[in-house]
């Protein structure tokens, strides 16, 4: 591309983001709303997702009937694919809140076009993650015992247990992130309502939009509410995954019992979440023809965030090894040696390669601005982050204090079916979402688009008869 002839050093990750391919409000409405029409490809993808989900559900029913023995657990590895996948999905969720809340507070403009997608991803990822502790436990029909509810036995959960903290963390997170998502959607729902012709849908949208009239007081209240929720969500980004990390850090297990776990997990969560954002947004951008909304600049900025979190995670890995050596604790040393050079070397090296080594490529601006590479890398990051949790959970448990009880672990078909089912469940919700509600925030995009001026409209958006021109896909995403 011609834009690479001269080196470009401008800081793209700033509030000063522009969408040169978007000229007026109507274009925004038209283009975004056009993405809501179902296509064959969408139906196909939804069918695959539902099929995967049903497969996972069937496997779970089978497992409930026959016992957890049908999962791959091999004591002392008492936690396996389910907890790995739980942490994986919780982690995915974090990037969404980071992008929608923290970057909002920091006025990072590149978030505008991707945050809706990321936020929806958060809600559905937490919905997926929340299932796994229940799938994982021996008597899932008793999971409500972890919730403090009044009962005649006067029994409460054990508030010292990190698993109870988890219950609070996950339920809080789900509540807050879904509220945040919904509140942000209100002006957009109002747009849909106004353009809807089907009376039933119009009625539903009217209710969901809470009677949004686009008035100035509404906007003032809305912005205050949005700011408040953003501020409210921000600490959750840090706390929820810290709590998840306590599940491990609070146990004596070598490889788990480390004070670095909370920041390490938070960084990992954001890293994995950004990976998943790429995995989702790049195809959406392509198939929904939104390249002029989610521009290469936005991807570039997100890729920098990805690079930073990758570095933080890599640093945490190295510190773990350093502390194992520095502590002088032979059990810990033995474990970390075994993790990298012992029986689990392959898992550890998948983790290190995907999470530390491959993201180094993002130092190259060329690769940062290559959507295909970002997509490929994001798949590696997803795999790498799943394996990070595998490496934390399985080798630690398999190589604990008591050598007589050292063991191995191989997941079973039930584990794999439920893991696949979780992707089906997640994408089922996500696919349903993107055809019901706008995947790019209409109202916020309009904030970037310059106000409609007469000359502007005449010159670019409308033809002489006042009709919109066709919107080409060949719209550059660069500054001019």
């Amino acid at each position, binding site marked *: 591309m011609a834009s690479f002839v001269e080196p470009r050093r401008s800081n793209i990750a700033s509030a000063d983001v522009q969408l040169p391919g978007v000229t007026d409000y109507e274009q925004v409405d038209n283009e975004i709303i056009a993405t809501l029409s179902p296509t064959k490809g969408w139906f196909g993808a939804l069918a695959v997702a539902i099929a995967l989900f049903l497969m996972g559900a069937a496997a779970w029913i089978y497992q409930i009937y026959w016992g957890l023995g049908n999962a791959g657990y091999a004591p002392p590895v008492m936690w396996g694919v389910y907890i790995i996948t739980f942490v994986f999905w919780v982690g995915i969720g974090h990037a969404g809140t980071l992008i929608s809340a923290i970057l909002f507070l920091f006025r990072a403009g590149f978030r505008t076009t991707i945050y809706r997608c990321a936020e929806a991803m958060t809600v559905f990822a937490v919905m997926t993650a929340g299932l796994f502790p229940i799938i994982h436990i021996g008597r899932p029909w008793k999971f409500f015992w972890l919730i403090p509810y009044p009962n005649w036995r006067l029994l409460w959960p054990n508030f010292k247990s990190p698993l109870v903290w988890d219950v609070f963390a996950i339920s809080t997170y789900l509540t807050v992130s879904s509220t945040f998502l919904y509140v942000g959607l209100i002006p957009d729902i109002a747009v849909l309502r106004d353009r809807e012709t089907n009376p039933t849908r119009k009625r539903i949208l009217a209710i969901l939009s809470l009677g949004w009239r686009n008035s100035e007081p509404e906007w003032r209240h809305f912005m205050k509410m949005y700011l408040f929720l953003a501020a409210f969500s921000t600490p959750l980004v840090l706390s929820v995954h810290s709590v998840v990390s306590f599940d491990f850090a609070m146990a004596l297990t070598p490889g788990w019992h480390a004070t670095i776990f909370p920041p390490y997990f938070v960084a990992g969560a954001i890293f994995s979440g950004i990976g998943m954002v790429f995995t989702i947004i790049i195809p959406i951008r392509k198939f929904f023809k939104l390249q002029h909304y989610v521009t290469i600049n936005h991807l570039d900025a997100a890729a920098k965030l990805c690079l930073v979190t990758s570095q933080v995670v890599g640093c945490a890995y190295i510190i773990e090894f350093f502390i194992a050596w520095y502590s002088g604790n032979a059990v810990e040393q033995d474990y970390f040696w075994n993790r990298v050079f012992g029986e689990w070397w392959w898992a550890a090296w998948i983790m290190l390669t995907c999470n530390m080594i491959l993201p180094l490529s993002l130092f190259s601006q060329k690769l940062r601005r290559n959507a295909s590479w970002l997509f490929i890398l994001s798949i590696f990051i997803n795999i790498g982050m799943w394996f990070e949790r595998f490496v934390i959970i399985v080798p630690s448990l398999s190589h604990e204090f008591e050598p*007589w009880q050292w063991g191995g672990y191989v997941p079973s078909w039930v584990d794999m079916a439920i893991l696949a089912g979780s992707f089906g469940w997640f994408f089922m919700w996500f696919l349903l979402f993107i055809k019901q509600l706008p995947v790019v925030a209409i109202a916020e995009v309009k904030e970037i688009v310059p106000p409609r001026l007469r000359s502007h409209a005449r010159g670019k958006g409308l033809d002489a008869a006042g009709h919109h021109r066709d919107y080409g896909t060949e719209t550059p995403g660069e500054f001019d």
Partner: protein
Amino acid sequence: MSQSTGSAGVKRREFLKVLGAAGAVTTSIGCSQEKVEKLIPYLVSPDQTVPGVSTYYSTTCRECATGCGVVAEVRDGRAVKLEGNPEHPVNHGALCARGQAGLQGLYNPDRYRQPMVREGGKLVPTTWDKALPLLSQKIGEVRSAGRATNVVFVDQHASGSFGVFLDSWLGAFGFPAHHQYDSDADLAVRAANTIAYGVAMPTLDFAAAQLVISIGADFLDGRGAGVPHQLSFADARAKLQNGPRFVYVGPRRSLTGLNADVWIACKPGSEDVIAKALLGAVGGAGGASIKDAADASGVTEATLQGLADELKNARPSLVLSGVSTPNAGVVATIVANINKATGSVGITVKPAEPMGGFTGAVGAEQMDAVSRAAAAGTVSLLFVRGANPAYDTPKSMKFAESMAKVPFKVSFTSYPDETSELCDLVLPDDHALESWGDAEATLGMISLQQPVMERIFDTKATADVLLKVAQGDPSAASKFPWKSYRDYLSSRFPGGTASFTQALTAGIASGSVASRDAGAAKITLPSETPAAIAGDGDYFLMVYPHAVLGTGAAANKPWLQELPDPVSKICWQSWVEVHPATARKLGVVAGDHITVRTAAGTVTAPAFVYLGIRQDTVAIALGQGHTAYGRYAKDIGVNALDALGGTWNGSGAVAYTQSRASISKAGAFSPLVTTEGSARQHGRGIAQALTVTDLVAGRLKEEKHHLPGDASHEFLPGLRSPLAADAQGDLADSTAKEQGMYDPKHWSGMAKRRWAMTIDLARCTGCSACVTACYAENNIPTVGARWQGRSLRPGSATDEGAWDTRPGANILKGREMSWLRIERYFEGGEDGSTDFEARFVPMMCQHCGNAPCEPVCPVYATYHSPDGLNVQVYNRCVGTRYCSNGCPYKVRYFNWHGFGEPERRQYAFPEPLHLQLNPDVTVRGKGVMEKCTFCVQRIREAENLAKLENRELKPDEFTTACAQACPSKAIVFGDAADESWSVAKLAEDARAYHVFEELNTFTAVVYLKRVNHTTAVGGAPAATPVSAAVPTAEGAR
């Protein structure tokens, strides 16, 4: 057409009638779909039986020849637990795993449930009314054909009056005397003992010896009089520096060998020369030179000279033999002469106090004679009872094929074993716990056997069947006036019926049982045959009776299949032991199949790479490879007898070490079904040991095990926290007003106790009897059977391809449920040398005062009781398994499948095994955690009893199941907060330590360090000191 309403439809009243009737039918059908179950087996309770309160009956264990006294706990008419009879002079309350598993013989789901008769080539159920006339008819046919002298009766050897009774019965019909067959018997040793000492099995007093040398005598592997010898051995080791040093001579380190201080790995078949050299060293006649012995045995002259010097210095000493070579009798005779020459007879070897159950047995040679006669067609009628020669004789003998030629074969065996399945008529015997009998376990003492419960199947005691047959025969009736075998026994009992009835309470009485003419057993002076280990091949093949399963009679009991072999830690499988160097040479790793080929046949089994075997020897345990014998035994492992020919050891038993073999890699691989993770401690100080030198010098700490950076050890020894340092923290908070139950001043008084346990590793031999006791007491499911595996792909319960049906599939996944396990760690020997040490550690829940499992449980399913127990509430558990992740000892077990649910495929207690379940302990459902409870049901029972009697608990008033069973008396349980309990004193022992104490778990289990006698008796430190723990960073598993 209805007149009253003019309507053709249904009238209102009719409608209501139909509705009512239909409703009633629906309701009654709805009710009757539930299976009606009886809560209490009695409608009218027998006298002295209170539902929920146990009755105890003294009887005698018949699982081996020893005849230990047992007390059967019977609850609501069902025997639920066997424990040693504390008053019994042989076992003093202890009982081995095999003895305890007698219950699973009683409740074996594959027992014959009624008489069976062969019809159309298959055994089909019949009734006693049809079976007994058939038996009489066949007996009549044989007699009228004049072939009475061709009748053969093979009975399982056991001490007691039955043999005499049987011979008199056989005599009444003109049949020859029966064969008391025992495949498990060490006949050569018994014969040599009889010749040398006048008794087959003298009592051994290990504690009196300064030096014990075992030349292949595996007295801790369940050979001979297992429990009494183990008790004596443990008592000897408990004398610490004053106890004997123990040297084991043999090509393979058995469990006995692993308990030795020194292992001298001699070539198989060279034991006689070594014995001769030792005999020469102590001045006996017929000795050999040390050099000859060194040349023959492959052991250095210095080592043998050292051993000989020690034997000279040690007074008294004890030398034992138990080799199974063709010249076993020669070795045993020389060994007896050594004991005579050292003057140990009467001190360590006590012929004046002989064991009673070891005379009269015959071995496979006699079965060979029967087999030959049967093949020649000269056996007219074959009776077999309990014995299983079609399985436990070498295949080359072709017993089964010969047996097929006998016109009519009658079995009195209770189980569908290989021999019974070939018979034409099966008249199943009562189990020993359902029938009368007696044994003479030591000279001059009768140990009585009585029924402890009503028989559960339609079986009859063989003695009663024989009585009935005799009484139905005009010529024999007059000789059998007794109504039942009980009458026969009581009429012969010293003091008659009245004292018989009186003696039943204690189960023991002085007197002698009727004994058969000694001539019935073959006692020959072993001739001076050379060690003839025949055959070609580069390796010696050593076959040995399994330490748990023996020669296979115990293989149908799931507790014993699940109990890991104490040496290899393998269960539900056969294996070939090879030395690491041999394995390298063959290019095999553990689990690779090895084919062992001899002239007699081949055996293929996975390799177990074992330091404790010579490089030129491979070893296979007996006991597996059944082709029948019920669901738990059939098609598991291989039968090592397939590779053995008919070579006898001079006294009629199979010479188990008789042949050379060639071995090769077979290509297949099966993972070993083992409970072992890593065989090395990695310097973590789990099993600690001291040398005598250090013990005497007061150097009690094994410094090397300490982890750098760990907590201070200043609190040791003893329990650091006599009162529960409770994990909930109430006591830790000194400002708390309400300390609740954890307040030592609380009215419940619970917090004043701290239940604790000491385990003396100097006593523990690793025999694993405690493990079986735990299974029996705590309803622990066995999980290794074929149908208990996990799902491999979606499929229904009956779709066999969908399930992992390998034996031990769950154990391959580490899912064994044994609350108590014996860890066996090796120290030293990394270079493949014979200089290594094995340490056994019984490991169960440590009941930490500061338990890592407790704070992590989200629902308080595990919490701390005020009396120091770490309690698991099954009903509250949701199964997060976080507790197990937190546990450094890894002693928590999860119910992966519905092992306790009859409707599940993985059900562990198929009817009637469930009748054994302890009613005091919950059977856990799937999805919950479980672990050692310190037998909380026993604690509460004792406390309740004390409360009922309005008194305090008496010190040592009760104990846990493991401590009760332990034949080494290594485990002591009690209240460590009360000085008057034994455990409180033992916890203060100088050898005391806690496992992983640096984790500040404040465990309630205190281990006492093992003591190694590394110094030669009366001399300088031995040439082969046992290595101390060496920390290694290797990830070897």
